[in-house]
C-alpha cells in the first residue's frame, strides 16, 4: 500500500475512536435522539408541566412571525432588539413574570439560544428556556 494511502487511512480511522470518547466522556455531548432537550432547552411535554402558562418569544424574522407564530407569542430578535424589547418587558411584567419560552425556526437555528441568553442577562430571570426544535416542532405537534 502506498505510504500516502496508508497515512490517509490512519488519519481517517483514528479520529473515530476519539469521537467515541467524546460521546462517553464529554458532559456536554449531544444526545442520540433529536428530541432530547439539551441544556437550557425544553420540549412541549415539559412546557405542559409548567405551573404557569409561559410567555412565548418568537426569535425569528418579522416576515416569518407575520406568516405564522405560536398564539400570543411576542416577536423579539437580535436585529430589532431595542425596538422590540420594551414590548416584551411590558407584557412579561403585566403577566406577573411567567416562564419564558423562546423559539426560532428549527433545531439548527441559533437565534433562540442567543435571545434566551440575552433575556436572562437583561431580566435577571433564570426561568427562560428554548423550545427544542423551534417552530418546526410546534408545527409538527399540530397544536
Amino acid at each position, binding site marked *: 500500500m502506498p*505510504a*500516502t*494511502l*496508508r*497515512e*490517509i*487511512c*490512519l*488519519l*481517517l480511522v*483514528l*479520529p*473515530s475512536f*476519539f*469521537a*467515541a470518547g*467524546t*460521546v462517553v466522556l*464529554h458532559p*456536554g*455531548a*449531544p444526545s*442520540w435522539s*433529536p428530541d432530547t432537550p*439539551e*441544556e437550557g432547552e425544553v420540549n412541549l411535554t415539559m412546557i405542559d408541566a409548567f405551573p404557569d402558562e409561559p410567555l412565548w418569544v418568537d426569535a425569528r424574522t418579522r416576515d416569518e412571525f407575520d406568516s405564522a407564530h405560536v398564539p400570543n407569542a411576542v416577536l423579539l430578535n437580535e436585529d430589532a432588539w431595542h425596538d422590540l424589547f420594551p414590548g416584551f418587558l411590558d407584557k412579561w411584567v403585566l403577566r406577573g413574570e411567567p416562564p419564558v419560552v423562546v423559539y426560532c425556526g*428549527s*433545531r*439548527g*437555528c*441559533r437565534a433562540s*439560544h*442567543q435571545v434566551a441568553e440575552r433575556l436572562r442577562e437583561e431580566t435577571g430571570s433564570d426561568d427562560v428556556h428554548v423550545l427544542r426544535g423551534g417552530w418546526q416542532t410546534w408545527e409538527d405537534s399540530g397544536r
Partner: protein
Amino acid sequence: MTAAASGSLALRLFLGAVFLYAGIVKVIDPAQFLVDVESYRLLPYLAALVVALYLPWLEIFCGAALWFKRWYDGAIVILLGLTVVFGVLIASAWVRGLDISCGCFGVSESTETNYAWWLLRDILLFAGLAGSLWLERFREDPARLTISASEPLESGKTP
C-alpha cells in the same frame, strides 16, 4: 536555513495551528457544533451528529500531522479535500439564502452570516495547503519543479 525552508516551515506550522484550533474549539462544545452542522439543512440528525463528533477530531489529527510533520502527505490530501467540501457547503448555503453561522471555528467566531468572507477564508486555506505541499516537494527535489538547463529540447521547438 534557506528562504524556501523557512517559508515552508512557517506555512506548515501556521496551517497546523489553524486546524488544531478549529478542531479543539469544536470538541469543547460538540452540542453547539451540532447546531452549526444542522443549520446547513443537508443532513438528517444522526448523520449531523456523527459529523459533529468526528470532524473536530479529524481536524485535530490532521493539524497535529502538519505541526509535527508526521503523515504529512496524508494530512494534506485530507485537508485539501475538506476545504473543497467546506467551500461547496458554504456556497450551497449562500445560494439557498440560509441565515447561518459558519461553524468553522466553533463559538469563537462571530455569529454574523458573512458568506463572502467564509468562502475567501476557505480559498486561502486551500491555497495555503497547496502551497505548503508545493514548498515541501520543492525542498525535497528542486529539480522536479524547475526546468533543467541541461534538459534536451524536443525537436522543432525553440527555447
